[in-house]
């Protein structure tokens, strides 16, 4: 086949083509366009676009403290990203990360505020319980999917609202700290908060735990029999079943693993950063996790993508505070790059499919 003849620019084109085709370049391109949009919006609003954009990066990357914030923001995103990614590989679209996260966080608070013991034991138990509770939050959609064939996108969304409202109901009633001004739980006692590591940096160990989990997941996906089976089930359940793979086990296992990680994200966040669960205490980490999983495309990719989205979140807040642009720009900076990436990526895919190089 003489496919090579269709390439237009022949000289040195392979590198340019590689750049052009790789997902990495698409993410850079969509980031650049988003920044241009941001600049335009600042201009319209009457702010100095350059100051806005530079403060975005300053806020996320300049100085030790900013980097620490960015890293801490990255941790829940890695975990919620995996919480979407792992079940998705097996054919289950878990949009319920937010509910699993919030209810997991509440469980961690419950354990740490009620249990006595050595910090190591209590922290471990709290994190395990947050994972278990995250799993509980996915059982209904999982059951409905397996037994009834119900579309899990919708059921997990419904579980999100159920869990979040349940959490708020509890923090404003039975779990409310009587001394708190708003509906909030008691704080995680100081000795049970996640310690910083290395201790001078202020980065809590949850961040490293999240990165470690992503690395392990990457290794498992590539090298383990289970990872192989997971992919097989995700691509073609019927064929996997015919080949003797225990589809039910793999599917349920992956969904449970995902929900556990989302629950863990909540545990880590509440024990490492916020220390309390309150009304409206959480950012939409669960939803951002969907973007993380899709932009990351694999567990290794999830780490840098979570980092980039953490930069956007941390930086955008700093940008808003320092330049006075509307806070709306924070959510704009979280939505638009993702939309752009998905569009550009599939546009290139479509061109490739249609054979127009």
């Amino acid at each position, binding site marked *: 086949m003489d496919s090579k003849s269709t390439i237009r620019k022949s000289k040195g084109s392979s590198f340019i083509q590689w750049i052009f085709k790789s997902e990495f370049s698409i993410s850079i391109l969509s980031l650049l366009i988003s920044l241009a949009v941001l600049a335009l919006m600042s201009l319209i609003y009457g702010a100095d676009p350059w100051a806005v954009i530079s403060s975005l990066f300053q806020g996320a990357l300049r100085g030790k403290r900013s980097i620490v914030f960015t890293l801490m923001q990255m941790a829940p995103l890695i975990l919620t990203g995996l919480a979407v990614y792992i079940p998705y590989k097996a054919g289950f679209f878990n949009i319920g990360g937010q509910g699993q996260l919030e209810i997991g966080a509440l469980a961690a608070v419950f354990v740490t505020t009620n249990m006595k013991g050595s910090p190591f034991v209590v922290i471990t138990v709290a994190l395990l319980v947050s994972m278990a509770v995250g799993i509980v939050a996915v059982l209904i959609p999982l059951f409905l999917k397996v037994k009834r064939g119900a579309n899990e996108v919708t059921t997990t969304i419904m579980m999100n609202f*159920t869990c979040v*409202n349940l959490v708020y*109901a509890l923090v404003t009633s039975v779990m409310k700290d009587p001394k708190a001004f708003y509906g909030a739980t008691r704080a995680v006692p100081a000795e049970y908060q996640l310690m910083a590591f290395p201790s001078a940096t202020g980065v809590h160990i949850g961040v490293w735990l999240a990165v470690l989990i992503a690395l392990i997941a990457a290794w498992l996906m590539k090298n383990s029999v289970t990872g192989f089976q997971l992919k097989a089930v995700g691509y073609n359940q019927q064929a996997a079943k015919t080949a003797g793979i225990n589809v039910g086990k793999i599917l349920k296992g992956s969904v449970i693993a995902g929900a556990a990680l989302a629950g863990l994200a909540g545990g880590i966040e509440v024990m490492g950063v916020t220390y309390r669960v309150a009304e409206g205490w959480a950012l939409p980490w669960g939803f951002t996790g969907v973007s993380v999983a899709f932009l990351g495309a694999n567990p290794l990719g999830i780490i840098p993508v979570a980092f980039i989205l953490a930069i956007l979140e941390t930086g955008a807040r700093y940008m808003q505070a320092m330049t006075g642009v509307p806070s709306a720009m*924070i959510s704009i*900076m979280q*939505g638009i790059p993702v939309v752009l990436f998905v569009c550009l990526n599939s546009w290139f895919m479509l061109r490739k499919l249609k054979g127009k190089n």
Partner: protein
Amino acid sequence: MDASWGIDFLLATIRAATPLIYCALGVLIAERVGVSYLGVEGMMLTGALTAILGTIFGGSIWAGVLITLIVGIIMGIIIAAITVYLPTDQVVVGIAFNLAALGVTSYVFRLAGNRAQEMIPMMKPLIFRFSPFEVMAFILAVFMWWFLFKTAPGLKMRSVGENAHAADAAGIDVIKVRFITLIIASVLSALGGAALTVGWVRVFTDNITLGRGFIALAAVYFGKWNPILSSIAAVIFGAGEALAFRSQALGSFLNSYYYFMLPYVLTLLVVGLTGQTKGPADVGKLYIRR
């Protein structure tokens, strides 16, 4: 509890249900042609804003509705282009679109300045004490049911959602049908937003929809992708909301957050009990012609 209490409860129920019905019809028709429409929340928010801005700067409620229709069409074209022409994952696009819409609407609202903060005039009731929005919602639901299940174009559209390849082979331009339907779905969702702001609370505030788009999604599911059943589901959810408002007046001990769980728990229950849970077979699947 006297008769007026009943009537007020009914009115409150209908008020709360109306925006849901528009959005549910939007989601429903999109899913009927095989596109999952998670962007409904963002579209509703967009409509909520444009209706208010249109009314304030255009001088009348009907100007607001008109602007909402126009913006709904434009946004519909954009959404349709992204989800129909490009092989994107509809769920991811929907979620990211919602985030972006949240930002863009509050940005535009802020840009619009102090005048945008004004309260717009009240709509006159059309029949009894029901506003034109409310009456239209029910007419639309019945119309859509008739359209989808009794007419030829309805059959053709449902075919696209059930089996896009078969529809294509039957000479239906799948892409075009999905494209146009998504525009209609967007307009309906935007109208849902308008029904919330112009038809109900008469102001816009940031993120005013607060997840109502997703409740509409639940209503579609609950109503088994049937316009009338889904609208009834929306009314049930509306009644739940109206009940939640009244929880204190009734001296309930339950925290109001429990009431807000109601639509979702109900839907999950129905799904679990009836087992009739599958929508159109091709929802969410891409279709690419070569």
